[in-house]
Every structure is written in C-alpha cells, then in structure tokens.
C-alpha cells in the first residue's frame, strides 16, 4: 500500500450540494466491479470502488437508502442524496466496518489505482477496462 493512502483525506458534495461526505484514510482496497447491479446503479459499464474504514466516514444532509441482496449473499446498501440522486456511500452486511466509496464522486482521483476487476463475467464489450487482473465473480477478502 502506498503511504499516501494511509493519510488520505477526501471530501465531496453531491451534485446539488445538499449532502456531503468526508473520509479519512487508510484506503485498504481499490477495485472495479462489472456486476449487473453496479451497471444499473451507475448507468455505466462498471463501478469504481475504494474501501475505507466506516468509522472514518462522516456524512451530512438528507440521504435515501436502497438495499438489495448481492450475488455474494450479503445485503448491499447504498446511500444517495434524496434531492439529486448522487450516491455518497455503499456498505455491505458482510463487513459492516467497510465503507465502499464511489471514487468518481471525488474531484481528486489521482490516488486511485484499482488492482482488480470483479464480476468480469457480465462485462460489456463497449466498456474499456485497464490492464489489471480480472475475475469472473466475487473474491473473498475484498
């Protein structure tokens, strides 16, 4: 892990400014996910995700949440601004200490270096991915 990820401090507002997130490092996982759920949530070919400690995340504003059963058997919950729909944070019941950050939310993304693609089995051929290891489904330990 690069030392910078241990001391990273991130802040972002949603598109309308009614909600915000502040995160402190460490970042201990970075990946892309091509699962059908991530395609639906993002409207694009994959989600870009960084994992932080949920204790290091502060949210403000009125958020809606949506939960669904993930392919891994866990319940995945996404928190989004009720006014503009911007997703601020995701979480999984399998690891309640993990905060799943939508990387595109943050203006500075230079720190992000995904090291794997998961759920590559549902990858769309029009979606260009970096040259990193690709896995057909979920990987334990994420």
């Amino acid at each position, binding site marked *: 892990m690069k030392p910078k990820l241990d001391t990273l401090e991130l802040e*972002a507002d949603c598109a309308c400014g009614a909600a915000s997130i502040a995160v402190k490092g460490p970042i201990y996982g970075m990946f892309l996910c091509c699962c059908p759920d991530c395609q639906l949530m993002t409207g694009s070919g994959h989600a870009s995700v960084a994992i932080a400690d949920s204790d290091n995340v502060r949210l403000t504003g009125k958020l809606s949440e949506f939960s669904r059963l993930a392919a891994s058997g866990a319940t995945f919950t996404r928190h989004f601004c009720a006014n503009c729909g911007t997703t601020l944070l995701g979480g999984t019941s399998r690891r309640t200490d993990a905060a799943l950050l939508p*990387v595109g939310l943050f203006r500075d993304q230079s720190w992000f270096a995904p090291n794997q693609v998961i759920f590559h089995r549902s990858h769309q051929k029009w979606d260009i991915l970096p040259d990193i290891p690709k896995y057909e489904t979920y990987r334990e330990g994420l």
Partner: protein
Amino acid sequence: MSTKTGHCHCGAVHFEVTGEPLRMAQCHCNACRRITGTGHNVQAFFKKSDVIIHGVTSTHDSVSDKGNTRIRHFCSVCGSRMFSENTAAPDAIGIAVGEFDDSSWFKPQVILYNADRPAWDPIDPSVDVHEFM
C-alpha cells in the same frame, strides 16, 4: 425495427425505445464522474418521441459549461441514473447505457472532456476524442 428495453435497479422505472440512437457519447467531466461515481458517464440519445417511460423519476437541474440547463433524472427509490435532457436539444433524451437490458449495440462515437479523464480510466483510441465538450 427493434425495441430496446431497460429499467432502474429496483424496477420502479422502466422504459422502451424504438428507433436507433441519434448519438452515443462517453463523458469524463466532473459532473458526470460525480453522478456516476466512476470515471465517466455513457449515454445514448434518442428522439423523445421514440421513448416510452413507465414510472416516475426525480430530477435535478444544473447548468452546463455552454450555459444550457441539463435535467438529470434518477429513480427516487433506488437512486439509479436514468435519463438526461438538455434545453439545447429539447427533442432528444439521453439514456444511461447501464440501464438497458441488452446494451451490446452500444459503442461511443465521441469521448468528451478527455482533459478531466482520470489516469486509471482508459479509452478506446479509435473513438473521436475531445479534450472538452
């Protein structure tokens, strides 16, 4: 003429499209990265009269760099990215490609705001690239 179908994550909003896309685009601007949470937004634009939407979306308006008003639609139940409208092209509607049941027909014709593209998000070099709009 083939019909394209799609829906949001929770199914409260679904849609049908007849006809072919007017334009297919990938945008890396700050606004598109923020609302998708990833490195870019991909949309296919159709004639509004070719699109039937079932269910109710919520909208959020913003002003584009050109000074036009963009109206972005999302599902208020699940937060999925759905549609966009722009006052500069009132007869067209953009649909987030990730919402289609089958998007194998999609291929971006243009890449916008390449200047804002993160290093970790590669592009197809054969596509027409614009540094800004």
